[in-house]
């Protein structure tokens, strides 16, 4: 919370100062700025620096400490142009010798001219290419399940760059009070020493050949992914397999990472933006299963030992839980390589729990959690979320897609944001909530989908003292939704969802993730074409029916507001919905 406050103050200070930029003559002389410049000449002679005017503009330390205002940098920059006399000694001579030297000595041609050997080079590569160029042109996604249960999914593409990832059907949902935080730590201990390589060896090799090497932990999936050129895919799979087959989890590295986890926990707790969604998850699902956060408490991290890390790897990183996903690579080749490096992993171990037994621990509760900020200057927030079915339901119904379309119709965004049309400027929550009341800083619909559950909701964030009004505005928008929603909005939402999906899947990393996550979450992969078709089939009746149903369920509410703000609890919300049922269902 303190951090938020500090930032706000800082920017306020700057903006206040920006309003009066014209005190230039005084601000330059008595404030804490020094400006001097010197000609860049005679660069061959190191000792000719005679134009140091620092002292002239550098104030004494005593004046520094007594200075109360800081001139804003923008006024400073404009000062430079206004007060050219300050810079009376800047050079009017042209460029330094050094760059001309480079030019004269460079054996290369400017980039405006084609490289002289380019034609020859292209021809010689064309010949090479005749042998390997006509490979299988079938660029469909393919899935293979190995004898030990590991699933390999891949899609060939037209580029040489590949995205490769190892995904494991496990995460903090699987943690117990004894090993809380273990998956967050496993994520932090990725790309560390194994029996075959030291940490520096792994890091430096990956630096040489890859982009975007990352490790992600979440409630339901653990991910290691990377982008490389095709020639290096095998290296990557070897590194990945070592990570789960023979990690060392060295004591010293573990200690460092535990400290880093605790620092994360501290910063999580100082930022409402990251903390509130975690609390919402707890209100919705309690302390176990999906309710338990990927972030543990400091004492929980401290009680994690090497043995617990090994135990988690042994229990959960087994064949039936693992998916290897890749783009830009021939499926047969990838399957062979996965077999080479992963075939000795067992299908499961005696202590591996079934996914069903773990999922049984997650029960939706709902309710309200409210707390007051440390000071009146904190921006209040209100989040409401409704329970809904999970990704696995895709096999029997289209509801997940309807919910995505609904989310897009509601849309929303921030009062200040960059970028042009395409981010949902015309969506309902933007037009009727964010743009309507300028005290609202952010309001948008969200849809977090898990394998067996999901949460559909709206979050709201305003300047201090305005939350009550904003909730009222949002509520009326929500209650009148079914009456007001138009076909234009529905079509726009469908088109925008399709466009986003297709655009994102053209990024290799996103495609790799998406294939793996679908396979982990629902055991199958829906192609972009199938997904687009499902979105196309969503009707207005579907949207309205689903909306009415969601709104009548018991919500989870998280509130950060001072006592002065009037807020609405989960129970209030249910009551309001019941009293306005006719409004909500759109029956007049």
């Amino acid at each position, binding site marked *: 919370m303190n951090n938020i406050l500090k930032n706000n103050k800082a920017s306020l200070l700057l903006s206040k100062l920006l309003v009066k930029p014209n005190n230039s003559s005084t601000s330059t002389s008595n404030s804490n700025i020094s400006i001097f410049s010197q000609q860049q000449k005679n660069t061959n002679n190191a000792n000719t620096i005679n134009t140091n005017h620092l002292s002239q503009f550098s104030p004494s330390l005593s004046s520094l400490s007594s200075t109360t205002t800081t001139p804003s940098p923008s006024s400073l920059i404009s000062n430079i142009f206004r007060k050219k006399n300050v810079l009376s000694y800047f050079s009017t001579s042209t460029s330094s010798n050094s760059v001309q030297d480079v030019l004269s000595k460079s054996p290369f041609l400017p980039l405006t001219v084609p490289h002289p050997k380019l034609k020859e080079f292209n021809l010689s590569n064309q010949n090479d290419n005749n042998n390997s160029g006509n490979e299988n042109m079938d660029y469909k996604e393919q899935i293979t399940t190995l004898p030990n249960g590991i699933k390999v999914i891949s899609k060939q593409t037209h580029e040489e760059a590949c995205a490769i990832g190892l995904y494991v059907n496990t995460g903090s949902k699987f943690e117990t009070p004894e090993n809380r935080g273990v998956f967050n730590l496993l994520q932090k201990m990725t790309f560390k020493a194994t029996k075959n390589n030291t940490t520096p060896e792994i890091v430096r090799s990956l630096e040489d050949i890859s982009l975007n090497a990352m490790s992600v932990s979440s409630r339901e999936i653990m991910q290691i992914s990377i982008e490389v050129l095709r020639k290096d895919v095998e290296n990557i799979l070897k590194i990945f397999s070592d990570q789960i087959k023979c990690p060392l989890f060295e004591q010293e590295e573990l200690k460092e990472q535990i400290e880093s986890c605790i620092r994360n926990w501290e910063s999580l707790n100082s930022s409402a933006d990251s903390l509130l969604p975690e609390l919402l998850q707890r209100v919705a699902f309690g302390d176990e299963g999906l309710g338990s956060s990927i972030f543990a408490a400091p004492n929980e991290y401290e009680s994690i030992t090497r043995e617990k890390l090994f135990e988690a790897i042994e229990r959960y990183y087994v064949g039936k839980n693992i998916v290897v996903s890749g783009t830009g690579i021939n499926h047969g080749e990838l399957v062979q390589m996965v077999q080479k490096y992963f075939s000795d992993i067992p299908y499961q171990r005696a202590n591996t729990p079934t996914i069903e037994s773990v999922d049984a621990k997650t029960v939706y509760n709902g309710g309200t959690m409210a707390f007051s900020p440390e000071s009146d200057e904190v921006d209040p927030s209100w989040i409401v979320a409704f329970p809904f079915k999970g990704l696995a339901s895709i096999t029997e119904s289209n509801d997940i897609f309807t919910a995505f379309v609904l989310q897009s119709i509601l849309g929303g965004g921030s009062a200040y944001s960059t970028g042009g049309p395409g981010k949902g400027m015309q969506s309902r929550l933007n037009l009727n909530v964010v743009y309507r009341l300028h005290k609202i800083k952010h309001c948008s619909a969200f849809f977090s989908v898990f394998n067996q559950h999901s949460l559909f909701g709206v979050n709201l964030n305003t300047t201090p003292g305005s939350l009550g009004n904003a909730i009222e505005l949002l509520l009326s928008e929500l209650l009148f939704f079914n009456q007001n929603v138009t076909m234009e909005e529905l079509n726009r939402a469908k088109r925008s969802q399709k466009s986003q999906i297709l655009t994102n899947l*053209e990024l290799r990393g996103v495609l790799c993730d998406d294939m793996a996550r679908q396979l982990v979450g629902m055991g199958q992969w829906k192609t972009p074409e199938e997904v687009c078709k499902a979105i196309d089939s969503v009707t207005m009746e579907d949207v309205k029916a689903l909306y009415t149903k969601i709104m009548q369920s018991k919500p989870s509410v998280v509130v950060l507001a001072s006592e002065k703000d009037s807020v609405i609890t989960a129970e209030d919300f249910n009551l309001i919905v019941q009293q306005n049922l006719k409004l909500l269902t759109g029956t007049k």
Partner: protein
Amino acid sequence: MLNNVSKLFAVSAKNISGSRSIVSKSFDLGFLNKTPKTQITTLPNGIRVATEQSFGETASVGVWVDSGSVYENDKNNGVAHFLEHMIFKGTPTRPSPHAIESEVENMGGSLNAFTSREHSAYYMKVLKDNVPNAVDILSDIFQNSKFDSKLIEDERQTIISENNYVQSKEDEVIFDQLHAAAFQGSPLGRTILGPVENIKSISRDQILEFVSKNYTGDRLVVSAAGAVDHDALVKQVAEKFANIKAAPASQESPRAQITNDFVGSEIRVRDDSLPLVHFAVAVKGLSWDHPDYFVLELIQNMIGNWNRSISAGKNLSSNLGEIVATEGLAESFSTFFTCYKDTGLFGHYGVCQPETVDDLIAEMLKEWQRIASSVKNSEVERAKDKLIATTLMQYDGTSKICEGIGRQLLTLGRRLTPSETYLRISEITPADVKRVATSLLRDVSPAVTAIGPTGNFPEYNFVRGWTYWNRL
């Protein structure tokens, strides 16, 4: 972002030295020819249409303009950026901002723009059957924007808010200061947004004048990537952009002559209420088309980037990164290489505790001298492989390709193919690295800017001195 994602490297982290136990295979050169060919057509009014057709369901289409804040003067500084805001506000056939926004969002597309010191770009991302609609919208806003006076008044506050936002970002402030210092007296020294008094006063006439002077055919590139057909696009652009004039009536270049392409100088803004020092140390770099462009890019990669939050920590092969990590000298540092038409900037941006700033800058400049005098052959070779791999991998998705085409056509007049990039990087020798580092990074007067608790920030002559300390 929540901290359940560990990124191993910083944004574009880089390499060097040490053992190498996991051997990477050599490049298969065949694939260099597999990338889509760039097709370029110049229309009678000078507009260049360039496409790279690839597979997929979506396309990026954009107009890149050789026009940014360098084409401004003291009075209208900020107009290029102001124009970028106003161009979306309505035309006779799309009378309001709302009309343009709904049209774009109804087709599931997106429309964005940016203005830099030298370029403005307007680009759309659409499903493939909407490419003609995208060209229609872009051509309409380019030729028929109304620049409604009332909307201009309304927009001032938005731009002032944007300015406030920019001013609250230390890195933005540092780079604006750096340009103000290094390019003082030259148009490159001005900011893109312009001073607040200009934002408050820029008029419709100034905007119209800027458009007619700068948005001419010879300075426009329409580029597209993804599911697009070159011939169809050329035909459509020829028809839709027919009213764009070839070149302004007067032949003189509207771009002011660069009188200073680099000035060694310093600006510091002391503010002890900030917890960390933010600073930049830069020397004159190279222009876009310089023969040694890739050599300097290689040097940038060898020195590398580092920040505390990446999980690779002190195991990075960046020599400077390792020193900074082991000695705890910084929160983060990056190595930047910014090009302009006639000049450029090369240097470091650093964020650190006030008490380590002098050591950090000393280590940075010491690393420059190490590269200039004693860079190892093996580290150059490794860095080359790495640079080739990252360059080939960076084109992911049509937006980046579309942008690459637009920028290269404006800056080089041509498109660098992956083959040429490979050729140019692979022929660099360690001698080239030493030559370029010696001439650019040794014994020079840098431009230095800093904000924050700068009490311990080294005096200029110390920094200057570290560029020629020659005993490693």
